[in-house]
């Protein structure tokens, strides 16, 4: 194939190399993202050959008469706020500890990262089984310790179901942030740490004035990635509660899916998707700008 067009201009060769990837990306990623905006202004049930333009009716319906939307939004906000704090603080602590001169630290790293490579639907299945109120891990352990009063219906009680799912999410995601933090810690100069130590700086001072400033770019990256990942939380909710009980663990991504694919209201589902996409872009675009200034500064 390479010999077939030796005389093409370099620029044409370049375009030919890009074409297949670009075509697939444009057709199956970019187009759906644009199409969802159009869909959010129309009514379609997923079956009929045509859809009808309805203006902002879907948005009005979602914002004013959808009993689940605001609950799902509130859950998404709480979930996201905790998802950028809890797993990342744990991961940062782990990374700092595993960066010390401790025996067996590579083995420990493998253990903390293991849940990350497990299919999230398997994580959901594992935790759903551990939460089983009769024979699951937690009820079993609490019975053994004589604390039967504490056995609850962790996924069936609407006051705690969301936080039970969140515990599984923490277990699943800590390893990911830990690996990124560990990579960032490699950029902290050991000579600087040593020099500060010799000058009599305590642990806290070294951390505060040497480690933390050097970790700033990594912290930003992890912060944004975990923010975006938390918006993706779909599999783990689907697999553990399906949004229940009584929609108490419903989230926006899942609710958009339910509206379109299960209730057949593609217009309303699209309106929810667009709202979520706008929120995502509001995070992504400033982040990309920041990355660009960073890479230009390093040149």
């Amino acid at each position, binding site marked *: 194939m*390479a010999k077939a*067009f*030796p005389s093409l201009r*370099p*620029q044409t*060769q*370049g375009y030919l*190399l*890009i074409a297949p*990837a*670009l075509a697939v990306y444009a057709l*199956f*990623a*970019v187009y*759906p*993202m644009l*199409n*969802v905006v159009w869909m959010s202004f129309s009514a379609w049930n997923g079956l009929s050959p045509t859809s009808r333009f309805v203006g902002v009716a879907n948005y009005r319906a979602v914002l004013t008469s959808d009993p689940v939307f605001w609950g799902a939004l509130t859950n998404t906000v709480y979930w996201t706020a905790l998802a950028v704090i809890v797993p990342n603080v744990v991961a940062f602590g*782990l990374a700092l500890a595993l960066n010390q*001169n401790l*025996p067996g630290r590579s083995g420990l790293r493998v*253990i903390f990262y*293991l849940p990350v*490579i497990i*299919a999230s*639907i*398997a994580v*959901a*299945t*594992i935790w759903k*089984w551990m939460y089983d109120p*009769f*024979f699951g*891990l937690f009820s*079993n*352990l609490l019975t053994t310790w004589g604390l039967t009063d504490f056995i609850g219906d962790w996924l069936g009680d609407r006051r705690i179901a969301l936080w039970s799912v969140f515990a599984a999410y923490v*277990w699943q995601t800590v390893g990911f942030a830990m690996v*990124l933090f560990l*990579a960032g810690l490699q*950029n902290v100069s*050991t000579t600087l*740490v040593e020099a500060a130590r010799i000058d009599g700086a305590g642990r806290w001072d070294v951390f505060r004035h040497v480690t933390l400033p050097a970790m700033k*770019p*990594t912290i930003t990256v*992890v912060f944004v990635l975990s923010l975006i*990942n938390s*918006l993706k*939380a*779909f599999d783990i909710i*689907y*697999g553990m509660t399906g949004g229940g009980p009584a929609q108490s663990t419903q989230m926006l991504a899942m609710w958009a*899916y339910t509206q*379109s*694919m299960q209730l057949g209201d593609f217009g309303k*589902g699209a309106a929810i*998707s667009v709202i979520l996409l706008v929120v*995502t872009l509001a995070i*992504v675009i400033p982040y*990309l700008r920041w990355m660009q200034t*960073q890479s230009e500064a390093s040149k």
Partner: protein
Amino acid sequence: MTLFAQAFRPVGSNRVDPLLVALWIGLILLAVIWIAPFVFIVFTSLKSNASVMGTGAFAPPTDLAFDNYVAAWARGNFSTTVFNGVLITFIKVPLGVFLSAMAAYALARVPMRGSRPLFLLCVFGTMIPFQVMLAPIFQQVNAFGLINTYPGIILPYLAFGIPYQVFILHGFFSSVPKELSEAARIDGASHFTIFRRIFLPVSLPALSALFILDFVATWNEFAMALVILQDPRKWTLPLGLMTFQSQFQSDYGQLNAAIVMTVLPAAIVYLMFQRYFVAGLTAGAVKE
């Protein structure tokens, strides 16, 4: 104990630091908690239902009910889901890495008009979660008549995998020294030849890292498969596990055997190639 000979000493010190010893013990305890679910799952998968109900969670299985695996394999249609998973993964992953490498080479090394906006479009794509727009993806695949087909799932997988891979490989190709390709250029080699004969071979480490990362991601993917593969004969492992979970959740031994069988391939790949995971992940997120 040579392992401990140099341990527990902070940077620039020769004395054992008691705080580090305490930290280490804390880490070990946390690691035990972290790995406990896996132990519980494997133990339960080897117990009969009677001993699941009658013994402690971490009591090792005494009856070794391997027939849980046989029964779960049949009930969960594992022969179908493993076949589909292998087929989809083994087509998608090499094809995706190859297409991304072609595009990344062109963006990094061929002077072209419009390469900057094309690259930005690609970086943008790395950040968009497809879970947010499952219905429009379904609609697009449906427009091509590809619901419940292998191409119908492979094409969107490619579309959402390409941006990250192009981004990583673009960085890698940009750092290849100019001299390596200039000489070939002067000898009249086309970009196709330079890409195949020079850039693909030198980037094997980066390609392998992406390959392994993508293998696990594709093997595990659930949400997109859920909307596109609705016919049980086309299901992948995560879809099979989901159904198993909702239908046979009180056959504890078999449910746990199904979990182990779903998770094992990815876990083995990870344990064999851990080095590549770290390389692939950190290359994208943390600049050296």
